[in-house]
């Protein structure tokens, strides 16, 4: 699943920004990232911010003792390790922001058919257009999109509107969703292989990460812990909410296949404050579906025989 991000593995207890060939080229020639970012923006978004994040992360990593020195850690592992530990809040933020940045930029390709343009207030009154290109060509993938969202148009609209609904920093993810929770898999299927039947769209905010299976249940654990301190010996059965919380919908495996960073820093410089819609439309045209397909897990469909 994270084959594409193995470049982020840890060596000598440091992380560095992965080498992205097309972006290195852009940096050297001073050209724009065709169809999406000006040269200035992509330089700051990827190189400056990326280096900033990785150096801050390395700095904090050198001060903690959560890692053993002789082991190699992937960025994903660091994120999971620090997720439940309040003391490592900042470290977790730098790690997840770095991961999110790479995951987003990796799945973009240039497309010179788009125009990068500043929008003015009239953009708020425009009716969004429904003509677009860059439709994925893989037949099976298209079929899965149609199954999950209805049609490619509905999928694109939902994706763009989910992005518009985020007011501050955040990311829209397209994920493959397992139909069973990890708890269920643990108990019922010895091989523990999640089955991915559905594609879905998920928003995360302020450098949140997607697969937060390890995170879920923090609040109820804390509640339990504090309750035990104050009211001992009280026999109490679990509530319905608790049961639902633990079994029904939490810790299902989500595999991200595409992400769009909709934080203001991505569009303010090139599109202006009125240009979020235009930015999102341009991102759609720049999605590299080959990368998305490589991330896609195997699909499970139900076969009903009579």
């Amino acid at each position, binding site marked *: 699943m994270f084959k594409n991000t193995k470049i982020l593995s840890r060596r000598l207890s440091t992380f560095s920004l992965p080498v992205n060939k097309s972006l290195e080229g852009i940096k050297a020639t001073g050209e724009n990232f065709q169809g999406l970012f000006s040269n200035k923006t992509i330089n700051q978004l990827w190189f*400056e911010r990326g280096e900033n994040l990785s150096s801050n992360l390395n700095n904090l990593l050198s001060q903690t003792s959560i890692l053993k020195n002789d082991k190699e850690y992937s960025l994903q592992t660091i994120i999971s390790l620090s997720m*439940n530990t309040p*003391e*490592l809040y*900042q470290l977790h933020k730098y790690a997840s922001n770095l991961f999110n940045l790479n995951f987003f930029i990796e799945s973009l390709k240039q497309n010179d058919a788009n125009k990068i343009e500043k929008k003015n207030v009239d953009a708020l009154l425009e009716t969004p257009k429904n003509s677009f290109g860059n439709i994925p060509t893989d037949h099976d993938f298209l079929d899965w999109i149609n199954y999950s969202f209805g049609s490619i148009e509905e999928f694109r609209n939902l994706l763009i509107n989910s992005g518009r609904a985020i*007011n501050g*920093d955040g990311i829209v993810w397209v994920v493959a969703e397992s139909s069973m929770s990890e708890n269920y898999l643990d108990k019922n299927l010895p091989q523990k292989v999640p089955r991915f039947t559905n594609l879905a769209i998920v928003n995360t*905010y*302020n450098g949140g990460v997607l697969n937060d299976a390890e995170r879920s249940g923090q609040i109820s654990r804390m509640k339990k812990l504090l309750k035990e301190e104050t009211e001992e010996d009280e026999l109490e059965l679990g509530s319905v909410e608790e049961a639902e919380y633990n079994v029904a919908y939490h810790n299902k495996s989500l595999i991200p296949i595409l992400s769009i960073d909709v934080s203001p820093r991505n569009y303010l410089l090139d599109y202006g404050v009125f240009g979020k819609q235009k930015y999102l439309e341009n991102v759609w045209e720049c999605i590299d579906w080959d990368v998305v397909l490589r991330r896609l897990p195997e699909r499970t469909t139900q076969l009903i025989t009579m």
Partner: protein
Amino acid sequence: MFKSITRNSQRIRINSRSIHTIPKLELHDQWKTNGLSNLFSSQGYTESWINFQNYLLTNLTLLTNGTGNETKHPFQILLNTAKQSTKQHIFHFASMAFNNHFFYQQLTNQEIAKETKPSRFLMEKLIHQDIDSLESLKLKMNNIIMNSNGQGVLFLVESKDKSLQFLNCSNDGTPFYYGKNQILDLNGGIDEHTFKQLENLKQRVKNGDSDFNLPILAISYWDIMYIHDFGINGKSEYLNKVWDYINWDIVNKRLFQV
């Protein structure tokens, strides 16, 4: 059929209504052409005040058109929508329009700002927060902001007992209602303090507590404040400059006077 529509439409009375427009700042004309020396270029000012405020207010106009909030001010709309879970998309624009205006109201030219300073009354109150000078106030607030993720506004508020508190409102959070302060980020590990704050919040909402906080000072750290002049990673540079442009005469007056 067409006829009846025409006839009907003639009968429709056309109501005129007012739309939200950008408040006029005292030094607007000067700032629009020259910016604020080292803080905002004229482009930075145009983007972060004129365009951003216009964006917020136009959206607010579009969302409140034909509703009960149509004739209200952004401040009234934010109070009106803060508690309604189905009106949060309106709350966002109203609250942010207020916050951005509140932030800009306390700014002035560097030369004028230099002549003003926090009143003794204000500094005396700050001592209870272990702040003994303007320098340590800057340090403390800049530190909170540098450790914050994403967009937001850091407020210094005067609470019910007239003591001063810091309120770090994420995104469009408002200092006027505790349920919408948006000070908790539950993305990472959750410690006992955060958990208790969350529980406390639930209890206050249940009890229907009132909120008496009033903002005294606001430092906005939305990307749009610094992205044009200091770049995507220019937050700390911006924070070091912004304090030279605070008109303390205005901030002093916001305190409850005895």
